[in-house]
């Protein structure tokens, strides 16, 4: 990969690393569990009943 392209891709690559860190933080803080709890039950509001 040439230097110019490498430079252009540096920001998205850094953001991808940051996003993986954020996901890991979310999993450890219990957000993933909360999302799972919400997603495995029918969301009455989402379907227009709640």
């Amino acid at each position: 990969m040439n230097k110019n392209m490498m430079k252009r891709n540096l920001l998205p690559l850094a953001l991808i690393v940051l996003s993986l860190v954020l996901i890991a933080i979310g999993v450890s803080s219990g957000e993933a569990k909360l999302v799972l709890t919400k997603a495995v039950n029918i969301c009455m509001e989402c379907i227009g009943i709640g």
Partner: protein
Amino acid sequence: MAKRKKSIRLWCQAAWFAVTNGYLKGFVEGKIYRGATKQVCVPGLSCYSCPGALGACPIGSLQAVLDSGKFKMSCYVFGFLMLFGSLMGRFVCGWLCPFGWVQDLLHKIPLFQKKKNMPGHRFLRYGRYVVLVLFVIILPMTVLGAAGMGDPWFCKYICPSGTLLGGWPLLASNPGLRSAIGVLFSWKSLLLVTILVLSVKYNRPFCKYLCPLGAVYGVFNPIALYRFTVDEELCVRCGGCQKVCGMDIPVWEKPNSTECIRCGDCKAFCPTGAIRSSLQRVQAKPYGGIESPNE
């Protein structure tokens, strides 16, 4: 070439829908999937209450975390949004979103005189940012009930994808839920039908004017790994790219516009091949862009 590309995209959208909403038993029994994959966000606006859904909608998940009263921000969902956005920006809208696919299919119906934009497009296009900030973030976090929890305002009052993929199939196959239909369901069904009818005449009205997910991914378009570039030496400024663009973008000026859904129609049409994606740039270089062993 352009027609073949469009057809490939429609099949890709269908295949992705089958992969992420492939729990067929749910459609038959009027139930939803309850496995562990439901905690993983999918890239598109795909309701987790769709009977076939195997993953979670990022906008629904974001509201679930924010309105829970337990978190002030969602590292988890912002992480997924940043991951998908940094990788491909609004390529998600063009290729991986089930509601975008539905709108694309409806726009193919030979009814009405086709138009790209609705009247008032210049102002309406900012609507999706209003929806994102107000209905997805501010209202769920600030309007709290007695238990200290808010409502998922976007899902509850706006999301047509939830009504189409979740509400209608569940109510069709689950008689127990039908007794609970009220004013809210009528409002959401009316909104959905309006958007579906508008989609026959206008190109992707929901994506252009209301979708909060498109607003998020659009911000990533200029910096995502998957980007477009225009070769200034090859471009003859014929304007053909804007003519074929359903989102009405002057691609030769703004190849990475926040409106671009990366459908690729401009690339397929360009008579001089001036528009290229970052993937093509890598492929076009010797050794796939990787320096040769002798360099």
